[in-house]
């Protein structure tokens, strides 16, 4: 079955089996392995990507459901070799240890900040409720999102 969609700004058309999950399409067909597969049951959030600007779990989405959509993965965030502020936040605030959950966390945080540029700690935690981390205890992740929020607002104000 033919699907056409945009991944990180690039138009693609591919022949796939209808049962292909979006995460497998991204990793195995598009070759973008930044999106991780954890639970594969829509619980852990490791597979979070943006579909038309909204975070979704790509392990419980068929690639054919993304027909005509714009998908953004963690590989699509950096610009001109420079980290996106959310990525920078995770780097500066030690928002990761093993890194397994990180791409999903970053995509969910990117969705949050696109809608709410100045989230409270409670709002950050609520937004990340569908993303599990086994390493950090979350506090550094919350700090990373705060860092990104401040940075993005400063850049806007400038």
């Amino acid at each position, binding site marked *: *079955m033919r699907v056409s969609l945009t991944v990180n700004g690039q138009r693609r058309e591919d022949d796939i089996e209808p049962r292909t999950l979006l995460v497998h399409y991204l990793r195995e067909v598009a070759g973008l392995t930044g999106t991780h597969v954890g639970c594969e049951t829509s619980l852990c959030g490791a597979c979070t990507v943006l579909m038309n600007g909204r975070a979704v779990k790509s392990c419980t989405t068929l690639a054919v459901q993304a027909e005509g959509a714009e998908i953004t993965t963690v590989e699509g965030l950096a610009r001109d070799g420079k980290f996106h502020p959310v990525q920078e936040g995770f780097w500066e605030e030690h928002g990761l240890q093993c890194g397994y959950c990180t791409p999903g966390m970053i995509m969910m945080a990117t969705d949050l900040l696109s809608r709410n540029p100045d989230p409270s700690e409670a709002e950050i935690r609520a937004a990340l409720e569908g993303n599990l981390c086994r390493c950090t205890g979350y506090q550094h992740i919350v700090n990373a999102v705060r860092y990104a929020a401040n940075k993005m607002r400063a850049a806007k104000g400038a």
Partner: protein
Amino acid sequence: MNRFEVLTPADLAHAARLLARQGHVALAGGVDVIDLLKLGIIAPATLVNLKNLPELHGIEPGPRGLRLGALTKLHEVAEHPFIREHYTAVSDAAREAATPQIRNLATVGGNLLQRPRCWYFRHPDVNCLKKGGDRCYALTGLNRYHAILGGGPSFIVHPSNLAPALIALGASARIVGPSGERSVELEKFFTLPSVDPKRENDLKPGEVLVEVNLPPPPAGAKSAYLEAREKQSFDWPLVGAAAMVASDGASRTVRDARIVLCAVAPIPWRSPEAEKEIIGHPLDAERARAAGEACVRGAHPLADNAYKIAMTKVLARRTILKAAGIEEA
């Protein structure tokens, strides 16, 4: 996951004809369908993707109430200012459901039609009553999350927390099938396992849930939805309660009320007994407490879920008071 094909009809009548065929299953957000496919609990030959059917889209508020297309996403319901103001219970229930990523995909129609979360039903190797087997394993097995009301012969609880809120506000569903269309009160749409343990509602083969319609709330009505869970972050409710309370301003006399419980019965459980306790009376904490007691008067707990009785009483009381805007002492 079995192999299947995906069809995306652009015409409602065509979709209904396809869905009337053996092995054809509707696909909305896919959150539940894809889970069930992965578990092998369904193995359809064809998924019928509803996304190109224009009749299923859109939120339309108006003087005649509110129309929610079946493909409306839960995040849209949660964020819509008109829904938050006039149908607060619905907005709150949608916001409590699942996680942001899931609310971004999950639809109103799919939420109402999702299959139960019972671990026996969802276990690929267990052939329980709901899958055509000969017994409900929850009856003698692990049943802490199961029904205390309306159970038998299966003891699942209905998983949707949106449904009780919609029923509390008098919702009806418009359904189109191969032989025409019908409108059914959402309250009557869900069916008990004593009618047929294999299904949870009255959707017939070939039928498409097109939209949910809410009448304008009764004059002076306010509503609320609350749920109790095992953890703060996303989780299924152990018990939930939706309440609509319409009362006269100063005297607080309740003119109309609806109380509908979540996760206590195989269907969203309306409690006329509780409503009777408050209708016609000035509402106060004592009345709300009596309504909470009335909710569980006919309850039959299983070995591990008697806690739900106490929890239901408290939650029903709190939800009624919250809807009425009364602070608890």
